[in-house]
């Protein structure tokens, strides 16, 4: 298994139902800064026409995650399914993983005095037989699709095979697993809503990156 998520980010209406569902499902500490998932707003303009791009985001569960390498106690580790987990009992709050994360996806859970982050609801839903994360299940506009990259027949891989997508900060070499889907029928708008140095991928161009990173890191995957 190799869990990942595709995001139809243009569908996001910033209702924040996903943020609420995440907090409710996973018992995340209350507070605006204490979020495992969020919707970022980028105010941009194209030839003087302002628009707001909404980017729902969370931990990218990078296949080659730098936060795992810097952790002195192994609290930040790879779990089965290529997930990046933090063990709150062994976290010494050195905050090295927060510095190493290119996406600001980690925060300090003051209740447990340890670093917290998204788990793709693995411990609260997936192990109990659910097939969706809380954020996916609650989204009214079907922004997110959670799935297994190793299963060629899964809805996720089928979707990625049909669509173009990009990942955040690809240049950092972390091989992130949040795939932002480009709008299908509006290339002009799509290209303007991403940075000029963003690489647009297809499944065929990104799959080798996944396989390479997985081969490198899979020996470190621990069972939950």
């Amino acid at each position, binding site marked *: 298994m190799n869990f990942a998520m595709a995001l139809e980010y243009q569908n996001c209406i910033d209702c924040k139902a996903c943020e609420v569902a995440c*907090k*409710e499902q996973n*018992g*995340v*500490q*209350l*507070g*605006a*800064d*204490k979020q495992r998932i*969020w919707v*970022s*707003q*980028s*105010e941009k303009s194209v030839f003087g026409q302002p628009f*707001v791009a909404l*980017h729902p*985001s969370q931990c990218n569960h990078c296949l080659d995650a*730098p936060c795992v*390498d*810097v*952790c*002195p*106690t*192994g*609290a930040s580790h790879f779990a089965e399914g290529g997930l990046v987990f933090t063990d709150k*009992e*062994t*976290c*010494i*709050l*050195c*905050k*090295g993983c*927060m*510095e*190493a*994360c*290119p*996406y*600001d*996806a*980690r*925060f*300090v859970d*003051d*209740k447990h*005095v*340890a670093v917290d982050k998204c788990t793709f609801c693995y411990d609260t839903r997936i192990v109990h037989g659910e097939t969706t994360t809380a954020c996916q299940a609650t989204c009214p506009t079907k922004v997110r699709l959670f799935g297994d990259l190793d299963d060629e027949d899964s809805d996720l891989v089928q979707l990625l095979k049909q669509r173009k997508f990009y990942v*955040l*900060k690809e240049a*950092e*070499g*972390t091989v992130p697993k949040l795939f932002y889907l480009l709008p299908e029928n509006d290339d002009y708008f799509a290209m303007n809503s991403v940075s000029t140095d963003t690489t647009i991928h297809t499944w065929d161009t990104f799959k080798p990156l996944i396989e390479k990173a997985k081969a490198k890191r899979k020996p470190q995957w621990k069972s939950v």
Partner: protein
Amino acid sequence: MEKRLIAGLEINKISLKALLFNKTMLIAWIFLGFAVAGIVEVLHERYFLITANAWDAAAHPGSREVAEAMKAAVFGEGGEVKREAPWTLYIVNYMYMLYSGSGIIFVVSLSELLGIEMIKKTAAGFITLGLAMILAGLFTISSDLNLLHIKSLFFSTNTKAAMWLMLPLYFVYIPLILLELYLLLTKKIAFARKVALPVLLLSVLAELAEYYIQSSLFSMNEARHLWTTYPLITLYFLISSVAVSAALMILYSFLVNRKQMPDTEFRPLIRFLKKIALYCVVILGAYEATAYLFVDKKWAQIILFGDFRWYFLTYLTFAIGLPFVLLYRELGKYPLKILAAVSIIIGSYLGRLIFVYGANAYPMSDRFGVGFEKYGEYEPIQHMIFHMPSDGEIFISLGSIGVILAVYALVDMFFNVSKARGKERISVQNYALDCLMSKLK
């Protein structure tokens, strides 16, 4: 003063009152008071602040505590650690104290290896100062960590992480420093002669390993390009640390050695330390002049031309410009050398501050965008991340000065390190020459 001889060490017999209430300790107590205030505040924020999650609200409907926690979640400051800037003044102070302390010991060890008499004569005092600074750095960082989980460093290890590697390093390094100090003070001449050379060599190697591991600690953070693109970061740490170490040694010599040394010994000591400081300042200046050609342009923009530019200019002025002017010319006046030393000490602290805060200044993500959600509808939009350190952090950083003074004063009271003068018996160079000659024969 009555003395007791234990394991070759002459230890002063001293009353508890004299030990804890002398002139140096009184100043130390003031700073240690700040440390206590800081620790109390940090402990309160970390372990006694009421927090809540969604489950609490469901489990304890109508609870006053949960209501307070929810109020804090909405209107509070968002906890002790900010997610965009996790490393703050703790790390700045830790770096400064630890690197500078190690720098002092590096200079002393190297000087002893090279047989530089004037350093050998005052080595015990310098090493004690270095050790006190290292302990002050460790005090700072231990205040930052969650000590309730610290056992994980021993029982759940990631041996490839630079942060973990510092644990075995200090388990070797600090005993080495203590052994070095012991060799300087012991009456066991034969033993001291036998082990001095390997201990000094090991000490220098441990210093270099430390700077390498410390640089890895920063350069492993792939996303913070200020740290990953800083060229030759180990060399930068070493040079900048030795510069501030030489400045600290000048200041220490004026405060401690001046009255106890004849002028014929004191002058060459200051001249030697001045040369080290001057050479390091020149190399540091050359480094800073070229480093930002290699640093990622986003970070270089913020530091050289953005909101950090005045900090950076002040750093250059205090750590490099002013000391260079004051030290380059042999003006023969001590006050100017003291001024140069103080200037380096202050400027270098600012340099460490820019290094840590600068790497966090460029936003990693547009988490909440640049719009009203992040800054409030009526606040000006900011593009740079900067959070003032909490009162607790400031107090603990001030308290670390108390740790330096207290450790130094206690060691000095027992072993008279400030008055100890190097003796011929531990002349490492002579010993090394003896070894070499005997082998050649």
